[in-house]
């Protein structure tokens, strides 16, 4: 239980930091902390494969993407000052909605009788819950179609990104233009055209 409390604190604190940091780079760091804490939480839930995927994909790829874009958008211009220097007017209603929603879900969760957890061992075998083999079995046997469709989705995303933010066309040519003036024939005056 103590572990969970510590993890929970870490998650909430880093999430709050992400939302309230003054610079985007700080938010990225906070998000990284959040993802790592989340991976550890997955481990407590016997979802080892997903914990690793979380680290590799989320904090390894997506966060780096964010960092690149931050770098792109801040190049050569004034540093970011686009965060709120004072609380925006919208913060009040947003907090209210959030608080209400959270409270409702929490209360409901507390009142819901959940089934007692199943008991599993902690070895990496195929019939063991949460292991890579188990996961791969499920993915490639029962969920093959969604797997292939996500591949398609990723391809579309790549194409979209390239189209949206890709090149501006071929670079301007640096070769000198061919002189197209005909060679002047002797004996004939060229009157200005």
């Amino acid at each position, binding site marked *: 239980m103590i572990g969970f409390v510590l993890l929970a604190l870490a998650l909430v604190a880093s999430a709050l930091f992400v939302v309230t940091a003054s610079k985007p780079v700080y938010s990225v760091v906070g998000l990284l902390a959040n993802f790592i804490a989340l991976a550890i939480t997955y481990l407590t839930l016997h979802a080892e494969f997903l914990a690793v995927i979380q680290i590799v994909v989320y904090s390894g790829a997506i966060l780096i993407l964010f960092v690149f874009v931050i770098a792109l958008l801040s190049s050569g211009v004034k540093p970011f000052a686009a965060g709120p220097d004072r609380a*925006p007017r919208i913060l009040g*209603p947003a907090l209210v909605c*959030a608080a209400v*929603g959270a409270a*409702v*879900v929490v209360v*409901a969760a507390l009142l819901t009788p959940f089934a007692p957890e199943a008991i599993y061992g902690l070895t990496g075998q195929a019939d063991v819950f949460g292991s890579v083999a188990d996961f791969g079995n499920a993915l490639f046997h029962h969920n093959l179609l969604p797997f292939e469709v996500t591949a398609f989705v990723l391809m579309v995303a790549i194409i979209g990104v390239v189209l949206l933010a890709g090149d501006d066309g071929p670079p301007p040519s640096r070769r000198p233009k061919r002189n197209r003036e005909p060679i002047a024939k002797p004996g004939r005056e060229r009157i200005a055209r």
Partner: protein
Amino acid sequence: MHPLLLLIWLGPLAGAVVLWAFGPQLRSLAGPIGSALVGVSFMAALSEWGSATLVDGSLEGVRQPLFAWLPQLAFGLQWDRISLVWTLIITGVGFLIHVYSIGYLAGDRAFARFFAYLNFFVFAMLTLVLSDNVVGLLVGWGLVGLASYLLIGYYIDRPSAVAASRKAFVINVVGDVGILYAVFVIVAKIGAIGYGDIFAKLTAFTPGELFIVCLALFVGAAAKSAQVPLHTWLPDAMEGPTPVSALIHAATMVTAGVYLIARFAPLWSASADARMLAGSIGALTAITGAILGCVQWDIKRILAYSTMSQIGYMIMAAGVGAYSAGILHFLTHACFKALLFLTAGIIIHNLGDEQDVRKMGGLRKQMPFAFAAMLVGVCAICGVPGFSGFFSKDDVLSATLAHGHPVMWFVGVVTAGLTAYYMGRMFLVTFFGAYRGNIDPSELGMRHPELAGTSQTAGRHPEEEEHAPAHAPAWLMSGPVAILMVPAVFIGWIAFGPNGGASAWTQFFAPVFPADVPVPGTPPDWVTSAIVLVLIVAGFGVAFLRYGNPRALLDAVPRLRIEAVRTPAILANAFYFDTAIDALFVKPAQAVGRWFGSVVDPRVIDAGVREASISANWLGHLFRSFETGLVRAYALTIAFGVACFAIYYVVIGVGR
């Protein structure tokens, strides 16, 4: 199947339509066309005399069914003695007046329109008298009112004419309310619209209901026939051209009330209260018209008030139950009143639209034919023995007495004397003495040309005034007048029968109306005639003393001026009827209209419409305020939606 009946009825309608549609192309052909159609109707009516006098068992006359919507809603034409008499007058006198109008209105800009309207009027009046059901009667009633409006207001660019036509129409509508109510009650009670059905089931009415129905019918008759208190439109109606005054407001339309009473005779005979009412109003109107006729200066107004008075006689007679006497007076009155009006028209026309008798005088030598015609007419209207008016007026008076109404009889007798006085006054002032046309109006007591009565000083449209008045053949106008002189004298003789015995007239109407049973103790008829004769002589005598004796003729100008100035206000304002109606009805109505225009219209109606647009605008602004363009605001709405969903699904649950 009586095709001639349809011809009689629809011929003038065809004329009206054709003249309306092709008036500008027909121009002066419109007159002969219109006259010919009415003349054809007259000939057809004459030839159908036999079928009108047919008595076939219980059915009197013939019927031409038109179409039957339901068995109870059957429309048709009825051709019996009452409608025969009225049709002959409408088409006969109408034909003569059509011919006269060709001469009178020659050169007028809207010549064809006039004849279209006249033909339309003849059609409307025929609808009224030829219908065999109350709905057709109503249709004719309304159309006749419309025709009167169109013809009074014929000179559309004269405000006084327009106002007069409007006044006539509005007062007619008041009467329409009465007759409509009566018809509705009758149809609701009896369930059928034909006269035969109605008269067969009279017992369905209680005496009280019957009186109410007769009262309502009488309201309509009073409005149409210019009885007190709904008479104020008739003097103003003289704004129309003289032929119109002759045809509509003397001979035919104003007698629609008399026709109504005659047609509904069974109802009237069944209700003594109704008879009392009708007779009293008729007598009152007769004497009121006579009194007011004594102080008028416009020749047409004198004749208008005399019309009102004579119709009072007719209503009085028909009202008390002496139907045939009332119809006889209608017959003779139509002839001599048309004669009088048309002669007045000749005078007016030849004097260049001068209507005030104070500016006439000495016309005996200038217009001998008019003099002779007017003399005949005056004798006829006064009831000089031998002329037609004598027979009819005395018939009316003695019948009134025979039905037991001595007070009405007395009023009628006094009126006869007054009639002689004011008609004599008109005759003498117009035709004797020196011609006063060149004398300054103020010397004659004419304060202002317009105030001296209806002035047709712009009788023709201004651009026509350059035309010489006598460019139409004179026989067009004098011919009809000459023709009318004959019945004005002789038509009364059909009622000549020794002491009220079986004259041709009473025999004619015997199958229709129950025989008059005199109240016992009534003096014989010759007593009435003698008293009336004495009063006629007295009336003429007074008129002669005031206007006709040589000294009066010499001093005509100052005498006329003094009389004009000293006319008592109550008479000059026609017993304040106009003022009272104005104050009681017209001014409040106008005030209500103005209030609506200044308060309701801008504040309620306009404001309502504006408010509708303003609230639509406001609603639009409200919705626009949601579109801030800010992504985060939209995100907030999504979050709000998520919170709502959370609450719904978690708390309320979906099939937990």
